[in-house]
């Protein structure tokens, strides 16, 4: 009972393959730009994020830094750390990969940081009190019910997530600090939808549904029950699997930059985006980035068509122009377009050389 709660092992999560793959992609290639998971309650969305963060090795950080700067990455240091590193080699500490949850009612002050009231009032010093963005640096920022969040907060969130930097210009403060995090937003479409303008700024979109297969539901409950009954033993049982996965993620991180993308695959990606009518180039970029991350996770040295097909729904389904009255799911439209393109390519191999 006094034992602190431990995170449920990532490898022990039953089903939810798309959600797991999406957070793994984001962990390997943070530049895909966040994951939006829409679906039912109680399906283990936050379990997946927490499990993944617990599985990743602890981060080395500058001991005195409020933003948890990485001493080995001089280009990403905050201004304070830059000052410090000029003076001497900074002391370091190890910290677990942060998972910060943004509560629904959070104020802007709390999220982006604000004037440190205490210092301002008692000592007359204009100081910055870091917010949740600072805490989430180098980790995950998890937002439950992002669709219910105030729009202006979502704007700020997406902006910071995309730029990797939090710029505060308010109350006479002018602060900028690194805020590189993987944004994970979740929500239940039954309770309201996200503004379409915001949708496509998330890199990946996964639909999380409660498992409808009874055997799978039973397995979820059985494992979770076993975990709660004896968390330590359960963790031990899954330690080897988690360790394997950790190696896979670390290897993929090192490798992702060198994964090659052939022209065939690039053309297929472009044609797919044109066929389903996504706006702008963001869809293609994300699609290719995600595909490279998956290839790296698989240990492949280049992106295959199969990999592209695998990530296409989650990278594109929220970017389709949609008619609010149109019932047909966007995943269906993507799959349809994909199979048409692949069939076309198969019938005319000379022009594209694409094979499924």
């Amino acid at each position: 009972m006094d034992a602190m709660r431990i995170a449920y092992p990532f490898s022990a999560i039953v089903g939810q393959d798309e959600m797991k793959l999406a957070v793994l992609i984001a962990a390997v290639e943070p530049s895909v730009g966040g994951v939006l998971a829409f679906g039912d309650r109680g399906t283990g969305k936050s379990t997946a994020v927490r499990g993944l963060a617990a599985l990743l090795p602890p981060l080395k950080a500058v001991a005195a830094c409020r933003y948890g700067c990485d001493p080995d990455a001089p280009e990403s240091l905050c201004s304070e750390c830059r000052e410090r590193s000029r003076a001497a080699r900074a002391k370091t500490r190890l910290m677990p990969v942060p998972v910060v949850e943004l509560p629904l009612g959070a104020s802007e002050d709390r999220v982006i940081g604000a004037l440190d009231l205490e210092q301002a009032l008692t000592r007359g010093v204009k100081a910055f009190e870091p917010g949740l963005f600072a805490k989430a640096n180098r980790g995950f920022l998890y937002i439950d019910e992002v669709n219910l969040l105030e729009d202006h907060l979502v704007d700020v969130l997406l902006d910071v997530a995309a730029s990797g930097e939090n710029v505060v210009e308010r109350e006479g403060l002018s602060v900028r600090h690194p805020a590189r995090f993987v944004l994970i937003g979740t929500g239940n479409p039954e309770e309201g939808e996200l503004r379409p303008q915001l949708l496509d700024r998330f890199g990946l979109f996964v639909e999380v549904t409660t498992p409808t297969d009874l055997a799978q539901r039973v397995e979820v409950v059985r494992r979770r029950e076993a975990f709660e009954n004896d968390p330590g033993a359960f963790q031990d049982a899954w330690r080897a699997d988690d360790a394997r996965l950790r190696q896979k993620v670390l290897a993929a991180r090192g490798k992702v930059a060198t994964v090659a993308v052939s022209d065939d695959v690039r053309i297929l990606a472009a044609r797919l985006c044109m066929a389903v009518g996504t706006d702008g180039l963001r869809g293609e970029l994300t699609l290719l980035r995600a595909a490279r991350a998956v290839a790296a996770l698989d240990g492949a040295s280049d992106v295959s068509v199969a990999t592209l097909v695998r990530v296409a729904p989650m990278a594109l389904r929220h970017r389709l122009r949609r008619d609010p009255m149109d019932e047909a799911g966007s995943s269906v439209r993507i799959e349809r377009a994909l199979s048409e393109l692949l069939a076309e390519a198969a019938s005319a191999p000379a022009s594209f050389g694409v094979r499924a």
Partner: protein
Amino acid sequence: MRPETDSTAIWRDAVRAAKAFAVAPERLGGLRILGPAGGVRDAYLSLLRSLLGGRFSERRLPPSGTEETLLGGTDLAASLEAKRLVHRRGLLDQDVPILLVVPMAERVSEGVAGILARSLDEPGRAPLVYIALDEGRGLDEAMPAALADRLGLTVDLREIARLPCEDLPGVDVVDAARVQLPRVEVPEAAIQALCAGGVALGIGSLRAPLQAVTLARASAALDGRGLVADEDVAFAARLILAPHATMAPTPEAASPESETDADPDPDASPPDRRGEEAAAEAPPGQGVPDMHDIVIEAARASLPAGLLSKAGVSSRKGKRRQGKSGASRKSGRRGRPLASRPGAPAQGPFDLLATLKAAVPWQRLRAKGFGASRRIAFGRGDIHIRRYRERSESLTIFAVDASGSTAAQRLAEAKGAVELLLADCYVRRDQVALIAFRKAQADVILPPTRSLVRAKRLLAEMPSGGGTPLGLAIAAAADLADTATRNGLSPTIVFLTDGGANTTRDGTADRARAESEARLAARRAATLGSRILMIDVSRRDRPFAREISTLLDARYVKLPRSDAASLAMAVGLHTGQR
């Protein structure tokens, strides 16, 4: 169909639930108590306290609790006093195991509920459990879903008027069970039965079956058994699955035909539209049907009454909310800025400039009191906070006549209009609700929502046919508008009818009485001051419709040949949204 549901049996279950909760509080997360404040609830709470035996230190969430109350923040007054940062700890920001009592849980804001819910899941924190006191009446006054989903164990004390004279259990039984708990074996069939029960009752979340398994385990441990038995499973189904059910396990109470079926497991076929039926039936092996039956029977016996008539639709026959003080949502942090006001920073964003302005005139005077040690001397009264005026969200309530032969067409129009308006709601963040009236009822088919997905699903299930109980419809719409106003929305009611009233509240076809009922309801509804639009879709001219709309203080529009688009346009024009 319902076995003993008298108050003694309910109380016995409640006491057992308290014991089971005390055995595994951290694993169950919390307990939700339904019922009004009073002797029974107080007695139950003190029973819980004694069973938990001081393992948790109890806190109570103040009704005005904010994020800061929960998570802590700067204690400004003390900081100024001490001239250094004084941090006030939040209710959840503690190192000791906490039992947080959440009074009036149905009024807890989404934001606070979100924090409460997330804190339960957070790894690496001291144990935390909640007791939510839910005094809600009806569907429109429910605890926020994020919290309700996590507090599986639900004890309903509403039916208990007096405390049965029974010996209350002691702590020793709990202590013994706590040791036994991890050793209890849960048979595969029990897990399967509880999972399948969840599916049959339309519970999507997997938390409910998980907690049900835990509760069954605790129940077995209480009896000192090493194996979960049928009675434990039934107990868990009653207290966790039934309260979360969103649909009855068989359509329209139990249809008698299904009983005569040769299938030994009639209840295993839930009225599931999504094809989970097959999944629920196929996998259970031998011996499972028994336990599965037990789950369904147990859950059915304690299902909320409304569910048995029609799944997912709240029937509001004559049900009126008690007048509660009209707390609306907090003046937000967005919108048009208003003048700053003195106040504590917990009530709104701090306004430094206004605070300085307030303090400056007093500096000379205060310098004497404080000495010259400070550059600027602040007092508590100087602190100003910013305020904003928020445009309140609008809610359009459609009250649609679903009676008679032309109903199908009119309904289709109304549905179309609702969907068109909803399609616009992405941008405007406005909400839509729909009431259908027919026979002797006025049902809220679509509770206030801005979700297109949900609206479509609910609209598809709308029934029609029968007489026109206009009075009932006006009352129901006014009721919903009243609730919405309390929740900070500004409602507009749109009646879509042919203007005739021919059915009374109790369902008799008596035009004269029906019309007088409608007049009475209209006069009462007019006092609410909501905007009302009466759309008359009849071909003939009916003076009665005009009369009612005058009484309602409504705008009267005659649209004999309306279609969805023109309807949406009329509403838009009337509410000034287009």
